[in-house]
């Protein structure tokens, strides 16, 4: 064989070997997962991977966690695209931050979450009997959210249809303050919003009402429920916006967006959330739950003029749901579950939980910590009383396991702006939403089998 032929062959071999190496490298994560896929029997010396916010814990706390759990703590910044990739490759984090009300059915139905009931059964620290009802958003029985095994825990929660208002703006407008015990009707709420709105040259200088800051789809579910209906069919495989109750909720939102009295799907809030706008005296009523008191409590002047009110109702079925229940869950393929559970015990029942309960940034997820809710100032007392009166009206509004809520929100965002601008009748909008969302749900159902 000539030199040139040998060199040429070598190159070919080299390229083939490179290809092999690349494919092997790509396959390695999968192999790694299969080598160590069992639940860890103890956390000693292992790595505990937590996917959460980048600033969840400071350096000192991270060191304490490592010492306490005898693990090396690895924080992966929360990113849903990365999470999906890690779950798909069966190499997920040990603990994942999530929104129980939205995430639990989707991931649980796909067998991606760990059933936490056996862990509760053997824990001396976390007892299922001590959990606030809002933790039920993390339950899924194989068909519906709200009952069955627990797949996660809320770090805190709020009843997110309640709202905060500024007394100074009510006084300026010469309006009576909303009742602390009786919920407003949605029509009264809209009317107040219109009266509180200040405009100049086509611009809204002060928003009268922000009605959907924690998500339009969730609010439509809540309003429909308060009118006595449900957006989802019993089997969770379809939505029905054409029912009288859902249509009423949809019509209310179209009227709200057309009235241009607050951030909406047509004119979103540039701040991304209500906090800065409310603080800047540019929003009279903000539909946010108890957690928003954390923003208000940090500013004494704002706290003086802020009050909390019960969730407005579209009908006679009083409901006051939770739209998030943000907390942690454990993927089924997590490699260090024992250490992950010990992190749960510390985070949900230890000092961090007590600190959160006393901070005013949400209600504690353990009933035993409820006494720590702040009640010192007048603003805190009023918020606590109103919250206590709305608590019995909490209920889980189940979402479908067949589609991520983001997909349904995406359809709302595509359909509603044009409909609102063109003045399309609510009935026709409902038909379009039904058709597009049910198509999405059908695809998910086919995949789940």
């Amino acid at each position: 064989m000539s030199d040139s032929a040998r060199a040429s062959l070598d190159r070919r071999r080299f390229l083939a070997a490179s290809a092999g190496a690349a494919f092997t490298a790509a396959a390695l994560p999968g192999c790694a997962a299969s080598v160590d896929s069992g639940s860890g029997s103890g956390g000693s010396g292992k790595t505990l991977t937590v996917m959460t916010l980048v600033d969840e814990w400071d350096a000192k706390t991270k060191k304490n966690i490592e010492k306490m759990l005898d693990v090396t703590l690895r924080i992966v910044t929360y990113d849903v695209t990365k999470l999906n990739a890690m779950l798909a490759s069966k190499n997920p984090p040990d603990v994942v931050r999530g929104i129980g009300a939205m995430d639990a059915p989707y991931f649980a139905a796909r067998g991606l979450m760990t059933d936490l009931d056996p862990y509760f059964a053997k824990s001396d620290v976390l007892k299922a009997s001590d959990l606030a009802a809002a933790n039920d958003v993390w339950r899924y029985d194989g068909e519906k959210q709200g009952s069955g095994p627990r797949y996660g825990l809320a770090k805190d929660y709020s009843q997110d249809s309640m709202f905060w208002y500024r007394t100074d703006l009510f006084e300026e407008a010469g309006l009576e303050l909303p009742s602390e015990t009786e919920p407003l009707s949605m029509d009264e709420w809209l009317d107040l919003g219109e009266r509180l709105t200040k405009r100049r040259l086509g611009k809204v200088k002060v928003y009268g009402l922000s009605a959907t800051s924690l998500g339009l789809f969730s609010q439509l579910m809540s309003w429909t429920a308060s009118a006595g209906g449900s957006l989802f069919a019993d089997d969770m495989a379809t939505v029905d916006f054409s029912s009288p109750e859902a249509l009423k909720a949809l019509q209310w939102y179209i009227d709200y967006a057309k009235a241009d009295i607050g951030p909406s799907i047509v004119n979103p809030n540039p701040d991304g959330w209500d906090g800065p706008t409310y603080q800047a005296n540019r929003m009279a009523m903000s539909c946010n739950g108890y957690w928003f008191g954390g923003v208000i409590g940090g500013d004494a002047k704002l706290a003086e003029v802020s009050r909390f009110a019960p969730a407005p109702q579209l009908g006679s079925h009083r409901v006051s749901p939770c739209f998030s229940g943000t907390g942690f869950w454990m993927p089924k393929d997590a490699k260090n579950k024992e250490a992950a559970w010990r992190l749960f015990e510390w985070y949900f029942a230890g000092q961090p939980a007590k600190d959160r309960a006393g901070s005013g940034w949400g209600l504690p997820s353990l009933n035993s910590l409820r006494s720590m809710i702040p009640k010192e100032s007048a603003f805190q007392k009023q918020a606590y009383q109103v919250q206590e009166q709305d608590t019995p009206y909490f209920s889980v509004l189940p979402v479908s396991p067949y589609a991520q809520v983001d997909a349904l929100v995406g359809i709302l965002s595509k359909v509603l702006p044009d409909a609102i601008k063109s003045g399309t009748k609510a009935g026709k909008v409902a038909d379009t939403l039904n058709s597009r969302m049910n198509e999405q749900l059908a695809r998910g159902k086919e995949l789940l089998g």
Partner: protein
Amino acid sequence: MSTDQLTGPDAEPAAPSPARSAGGRPRSGRARRPRSLQARRSGAFYVFVGPWILGFLGLTAYPLGYALWLSFTNSDGLSPNARFVGLANYREVFTDPDTLASLARTGLFAAITVPLTIVAGLILAVLINQPIRGRGVFRTLLYLPAVVPPVGAALTFKLIFDRDSGSANGVLDLLGINGIAWLGDPYARYVLIMLTVWGCGNVMIISLAGLQDVPRELLDAARVDGASQWQSFSRIILPLLSPVLFFQLVTQLIMTLQTFVPLLISLDPSPKGVGAIPESNYLIMIDVFAQYFANGRYGYASALLWVLFLFIMLITLLVFRLSKGAVFYSVDPEQTKPKTRTIGDK
């Protein structure tokens, strides 16, 4: 290149091999073969090309192949019952009115912004190539937008163009004009175009480098012959700059067809917020992102990506074909060995 060429007069003399004694006799019966020039060249080839080949195979070829396979399934990445669906996803790409509309919107966006960016960059390059005082400062200032991280630029534009609290409407307010909902339909597309053209500093810098490569003697000769400034620009500078402009046309086109900026100027740049992007800014890559991560349609989104990939290839080939005769190469790269230049040559 043949072996003969390698061992021809240009080849380096073989170095004494450790397997040979100084006198040229083998030290033992099992002496090592001398390491030839060709072997060394082959070694260098492997060393230099190896990382790229590995990167290409692992980070480009494998994902492309994986996406191609996904595009024939209805996978959502997580569910257990994904199955092969043949060409169904591709059929849907070409029949879904939303996808076709976003493809058309992307084409229109590219047709507007690519020429605008190149012309703006060229004009700025011509301006800052003039012998004016503070030229360095101007160059820096004009280039700055190109180095601002896209997220920061998008955030700034969002704040400027907010309907109720933005400074753009503040100016209109001073003039007694009603505020405009810039970030909603149909104005959002103009904000996106402005943001894209605002970052034309990269084009400017490349054009400036091209301008500085134009031989001074040609311009002097033209001036002596009585050519006006416009004639010098259009008949000497532009033809000499055409390879640079063509390069920018191709790269800008590819970049613009894949732009992801609308997501950055949306209020919530996440799968949750992607649906809130105004329709006029709902470009093809936004649709791809939404299909992957909001709708969980990995199969369909992969088919979309492959169609986009082929679409970009087709457009690029078309641009190459149409540019024949319009791009002036002073040296034919395929036939003539380029002249060696050193820094400082004009």
